[in-house]
């Protein structure tokens, strides 16, 4: 079914911005991000958050900082950069417009 691939790609693309959204106002470490995304079902396997975070860091949308934890070794915390905030803002606007347009067309088509 061709829509499967499309949905997977959409989910993958949107996931980056969901992670950015989770970082608004507060730095988090990877485990918290995984918990935050668990209920959405967007993260099919937890391990894939790490390539995603690596990518966000490479693109300068997040930066990282090691912090001591009370019960174990230090944790790497992720924090939104100015570029990350800008990217998230642009995506929010785009997404809102996209969703409205697609919804309108889908509803016009009526139910199957």
């Amino acid at each position, binding site marked *: 079914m061709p829509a499967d691939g499309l949905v997977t790609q959409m989910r993958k693309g949107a996931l980056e911005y969901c992670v950015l959204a989770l970082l608004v106002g507060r730095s988090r470490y*990877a*485990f918290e991000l995984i918990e935050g995304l668990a209920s959405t079902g967007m993260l099919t*396997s*937890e*391990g*894939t958050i*790490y390539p*995603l975070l690596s990518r966000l860091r490479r693109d300068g949308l997040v930066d990282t900082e090691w912090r001591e934890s009370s019960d*174990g*070794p230090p944790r790497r915390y992720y924090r939104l950069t100015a570029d990350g905030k800008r990217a998230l803002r642009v995506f929010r606007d785009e997404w809102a417009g996209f969703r409205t347009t697609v919804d309108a067309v889908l509803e016009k088509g009526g139910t199957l």
Partner: protein
Amino acid sequence: MSAPHADQIVSGYLARLEQALAALPPARRAELVDDVRSHIAEARRGLAEETDADLLNILDKLGDPADIAADARERLGAQPAPPPVPLGMLEIAAIVALVLVWPAGIALVWLSSAWSRRDKLIATVVVPGGVLVLAILSAVGGGYWSHWYVFFLLLLFTPVVWSIGAIYLAVRLYQARRAGQATPDAGSGSRLLEIAAVVLTPLLWPIGVILLWTSTAWDTRDKVIGTLVPPGGYFGVAVILASLRMASGGSCTTSSDTFGNVSSSCTTYGPPRWVLLAVTLILLVLPLCSATYLAVRLRGARLLQPAAAS
């Protein structure tokens, strides 16, 4: 309390992940493996009494290493791992033979797959190029050729200096390509231009320099250096020729006898036997230059490989 087989389970998983990530640059791969290792440690901390099954559940939720690697390749845009650059008997023999028996060395260089065609071409052309230039200069130099030390200095100045210019340009081109900063015009179509510029700079300097300035692969600083270094060689030769003209080759003694007859006798220097030895040495230095260049290139190419592909 650790699960009975905790170490085997975790290290086995991390080893599979590392292997699956082989296509990524070593630094990225190490970072991802570290991240996953911390993830597992973090997840284990939440367990009061862990069992093997708990560990397997943690790894299940993390996902198949192959899936994580596929995601990493997609997100991080890694190319499939390039074939490793060989460093076997052939390459070592080629470098050694290049110094000792130049034609055999060149033959071995072309047999090896460790160098690019461009590198092979440069290594092949640099030495004959230097010798050719020498021959041209000797024809132009005319009478001064008879002085062994002019011959010696010509040998010292021109081919070595010109070869250095070519090597410098080649290394710069390599660095630019490695940094991925090649300008749009320097695509595969114009690569021939760069090869020609590098090859012709030691051979036919004016043509080489024209091609050099036509190419967009080098920046202006490189082009200026590439242009000035060979005339530096010219200049050195010119200075030597001029100073020799003043010193006037050979020693002439003019004597007048008691009858007023003026007789002059001149002795010209024939090249002593050790000059031949020096010339031979210089001719050995030139192949050494290109051999060193090839060795440096080979090492550079190996450094670009992901470390210790498992």
